[in-house]
């Protein structure tokens, strides 16, 4: 048993590293030259990157293998027709033209440096080449590894070569701001009154000392959303109500997840559910992260009963728990290999050229279920983009940021998402209430990236009966680190 836990923890570590490394890193890469090519595959929905937008038929998503939509837990949204998605982010050539023409000609010739942890893919490159062609503003990608991202930023700042745009990652808030790596957004020319572009509600949650330091552009990949994918064939073939059907019916919650999982397990003999990060995203559906921000201050939430109960629920889903429906060691690969019916997924994997372009089975997706009777929340990680201290081209960077991240300015044929249905689901996710992960940067503060992995591992891998013990242990770490942060940079 212990060895399995160790291996699960290793898998968790690997998963975290892979997630971190690939998050936007694999985004917008050249389309679908999958390693599955040439195999005997029952392909999912074809993605024809040359298709005109008019060819898109939203009704396909219900009957095809390409995904699904549905109501949220309140039953308010009929997703297929987008009737309740307030804002979609389809490519809009007119808006693109208007935006590019609004950029001051005086900025032509400026170079905007963007510090990334991935090599820009062809879609990103083409999009920004077009931007340069129309505005004269050049883009310079400065690439480093994720695990040394802030070392690189610090080094560039020290050499007076600061980039003009850099990211405040989930594990670096608020310390990246406190360490004087970023300037308030007000130094730039972002028009934050454009609420159709910027997710101000989410940005407000990351205000520091009353100021915004990072922007979130709606429809972009810069929030990682947790949601559920499922093997539609497996549900249909076994006559079990699918998550989508439950969602449509407004009956998708923790309890119904367990009900259908038990049925699937009984019918197939397989685990019903898996997840990366040991089901971490499932815990977030309670709406509470280990660390919150209240009145601009970091707050330890580990005394919350709801938080602890969520982890106990997750522990009990495990094959070693009371419900015995989830094998968190299978991970995404296990789902792809049809070793389980459902997997907790993140939206980055749905980008074109990523993991879901070609699967062997029909699949769908729904938000993660929340506790019965509670409002829908979406587990989220924010990647806020802002202006580093020392940036020389903040004004130009402001226009670059908005253009770069807004999917309505994508280049046709190089859209962000694997298909239009997924794009709209992503739009829908952006409009929901979100539970942001803040704890990672606090747990890891002044120490090792593995600390957060250990934190999740301790609480997720030791059974419901031990959740309180481990939460109490880590609560002391969080208290100490919050104090340390304020002592050092407060």
């Amino acid at each position, binding site marked *: 048993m212990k*060895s*399995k836990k160790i*291996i699960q923890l*290793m*898998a968790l570590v*690997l998963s975290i590293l892979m997630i971190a490394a690939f998050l936007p890193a694999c985004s917008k890469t050249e389309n679908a030259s999958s390693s599955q090519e040439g195999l005997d595959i029952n392909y999912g929905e074809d993605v024809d990157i040359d298709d005109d937008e008019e060819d898109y038929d939203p009704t396909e998503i219900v009957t095809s293998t390409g995904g699904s939509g549905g109501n949220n837990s309140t039953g308010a949204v009929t997703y297929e027709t987008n009737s309740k998605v307030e804002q979609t982010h389809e490519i809009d050539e007119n808006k693109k033209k208007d935006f590019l023409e609004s950029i001051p000609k005086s900025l032509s010739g400026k170079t905007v*440096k963007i510090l990334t942890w991935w090599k820009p893919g062809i879609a990103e490159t083409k999009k920004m080449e077009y931007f340069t062609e129309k505005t004269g503003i050049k883009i*310079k990608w*400065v*690439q*480093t590894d994720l695990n*040394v991202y802030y*070392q*690189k930023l*610090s*080094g*560039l700042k*020290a*050499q*007076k*070569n600061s*980039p003009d745009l850099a990211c405040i990652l989930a594990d670096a808030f608020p*310390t990246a701001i406190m*360490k004087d790596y970023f300037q308030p957004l007000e130094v730039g020319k972002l028009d934050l009154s454009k609420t159709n572009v910027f997710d101000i509600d989410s940005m407000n949650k990351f205000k520091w000392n009353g100021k915004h330091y990072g922007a979130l552009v709606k429809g972009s990949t810069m929030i990682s959303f947790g949601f559920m994918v499922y093997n539609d064939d497996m549900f249909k073939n076994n006559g079990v109500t699918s998550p989508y059907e439950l969602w449509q019916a407004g009956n998708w919650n923790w309890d119904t997840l367990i009900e259908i999982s038990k049925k699937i397990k009984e019918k197939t003999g397989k685990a019903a559910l898996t997840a990366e990060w040991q089901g971490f995203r499932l815990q977030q559906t309670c709406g509470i992260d280990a660390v919150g921000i209240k009145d601009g201050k970091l707050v330890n939430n580990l005394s919350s009963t709801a938080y602890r109960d969520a982890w106990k629920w997750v522990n009990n889903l495990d094959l070693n728990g009371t419900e015995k429906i989830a094998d968190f*060691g299978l991970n995404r*690969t296990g789902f792809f290999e049809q070793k389980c019916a459902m997997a907790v997924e993140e939206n980055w994997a749905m980008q074109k050229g990523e993991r879901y372009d070609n699967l062997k089975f029909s699949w769908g997706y729904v938000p993660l279920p929340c506790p019965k009777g509670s409002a829908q929340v979406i587990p989220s990680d924010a990647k806020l983009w802002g202006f580093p201290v020392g940036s020389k081209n903040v004004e130009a960077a402001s226009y670059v940021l908005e253009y770069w991240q807004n999917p309505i300015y994508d280049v046709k044929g190089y859209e962000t998402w694997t298909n239009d249905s997924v794009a709209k689901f992503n739009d829908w996710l952006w409009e929901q209430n979100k539970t942001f992960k803040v704890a990672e940067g606090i747990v890891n*503060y*002044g120490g090792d990236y593995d600390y957060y992995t250990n934190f999740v591992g301790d609480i997720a891998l030791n059974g419901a009966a031990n959740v309180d013990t481990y939460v109490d242990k880590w609560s002391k770490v969080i208290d100490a680190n919050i104090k*340390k942060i304020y002592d*050092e*940079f407060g």
Partner: protein
Amino acid sequence: MKFKVGILTTAVAVGLSAVVLSTTAGSSFDATKLLSFKQVAQLTAAKGTNIFEYNGVNYNNEYERLLAKDGFIYGMDMNWFGSFAQNTVSLGNNNLSGMASVFDPAKFEKDLWNIKALGFNAVNVWMFQDGVGGLLFDDEGLVTGLDNNFLTNTKKMLEIARKIGVDIVPSIQPHGKSHFFYQGLNGESPNEIGYKYLRYYWDDEGRQAYLNNAVKPLCKLLADYQDVLPIIDLTVENGTNMINDMETGMFYAAEYGSLTWENFVSFVNDLNAEVKAQMPNVMTSVEDVAWSNNSFKYNDVDVDLIGRNGYDNQGKVVDPKELFVEKPVYLGEFNTFEGDDNRSEELKTAARLAFYPNAVEKGYVGGFFFQWDRAEGAELGMFTSATSDNIEALKDFAIPLANTIRDLKYAYNKETVIVDKPTMLYYSAGSTIYFIGSRDVESYTLERKTNGGKWEAVLKNIDPDNDTLVNGIVKCVDTTATGGNTYSYRAVAYNSDGDYSISDPSNEEEFFVPEEMLKDASFEEGEIDVGGWYTLGSDQYPFAAYTNETSRTGDYCLYVNWAEGAGKIGTGNAQWASQWAKDATGLTPGVRYELSYWYKDAVRGDGSLSITVRNKNNANLCWNTIATTEEDDHEWKKAKAQFIAPSDGEVKVVLMGSSTYDLSIKCYLDDFSIKEVR
């Protein structure tokens, strides 16, 4: 203040800096080509210029010349060589423990070059380690002379310092007895060693023997190198643990050591007299171990300067005025709190960068960062590793600290600098060249001089953003360098307005072509056990075989096929299984080598082929899996990992299949290699 900058009337030499420093950019170290202090003095006396001349002004000593030049002693504590805990730390042998000195002139030269490149102008080195290192004793514990190794190494050290152009601050008497970790060769306990051999602290007979047989010959040697000796420090931290005087409040809670303040003062005064007898112009100091309330007591000790420790997590230094001291003060050591790893690196960096500006503002004359490299632990050193052999391991604060020194020197010299002058780091004779870049620049050009010819550009448009390591060092690879040629390099930095600045040249070295240490590792024998590969341990789950289906070079390569579920034991997950190995011998101990190999068509899930280099005890020296690729050769890709050769120079490459789940790995491998890297 007794020691004012002035003109020395007994001028002795001319153009010392030109004579001595002309070797800076020369070929490899050759002590026979250098001139001693006296030789220089004799040769240049006729020209009527002072050996301590700077910018047309003659000074009394190197201390004054250095302060006139840079305004401050930007010091680096090297202190000891080797491992402190293992007592391999002295310039000389420890004749009580039997431990030999590990002083390495080549490493010292490289270190000193890089220390200078970072902006430091002096290094502190301890002489009689623990009060006994390098000394010879009789049966009564009386000093009878200096160990030959000590004299030779000290001379080499000073010659190298003169060659590189960095000053040395020798500390004659480091902590006495505070760091004895060993039994004496005759079975003496640490305390017995202390009471027997450190008697010169409190005993007249012992003192006289120490002064006559150790200090006097040392000073005779040092006297020839006064041009690189700004300060001779008499004690480090007062010979920690030696004073235990309730009257003065100066005491350590150690189980040994009971010197009175009176004993200590007389010891320092005697040391000072011996130094001044042979070098009347040289400045002397003691380190007071930061007894803040008692610093004023050193006003009455016969030294010129006081060194104080400055450990503070905000980089603050005490105002000397608050100490009521009447002598110039420098920071004998500074850093954030020793052993404190519970603070973020950013906070430590902020503190480390604050010390020098604060010390300059408060009127200190210098400060020594503790420390360059540290075999006992990397938390306080300049490197993330325990040693300085890999410049890429320089910590992130180092370049910002170098920039701080740059700015302080600019301010002192009232210079307005548009483009910082890049600074070449030590050229190790390989293809990789490192330099400290300039701030706010757009590009660099790397220029090379071949066999003493003209400067030629070998790399243009080096990107200060993408070609700079995360620690701020600029890294270039000259792929056109070839064996049989001697090279030196320099960098040119350009800003966006076209302004530029050219670095001084690097050291000049003959290009090093490394020998292949892993012989016949291309699988051309066609079968295992013929060409030196052998199975290691269990062969229960064979996973590799020679094949001629493909190869990168020759006819054969190795085909690895770790099947799904292979090695699975019972219902558990797969275990480490079969291993293949091949030996390599004759590696130079302590030298960095690189394992490389080529792979093709690697298909894997979470299964992995572990490829390691181990010592003969099967401990991993480096670990690699098919993961990193920096070079492509069509469909073949190259993976590599570096390691330090063990003391016996014997290693083995081990291939080992492993998978954590039911996953497989398939690939072809070819052309394994182990070569020294520079």
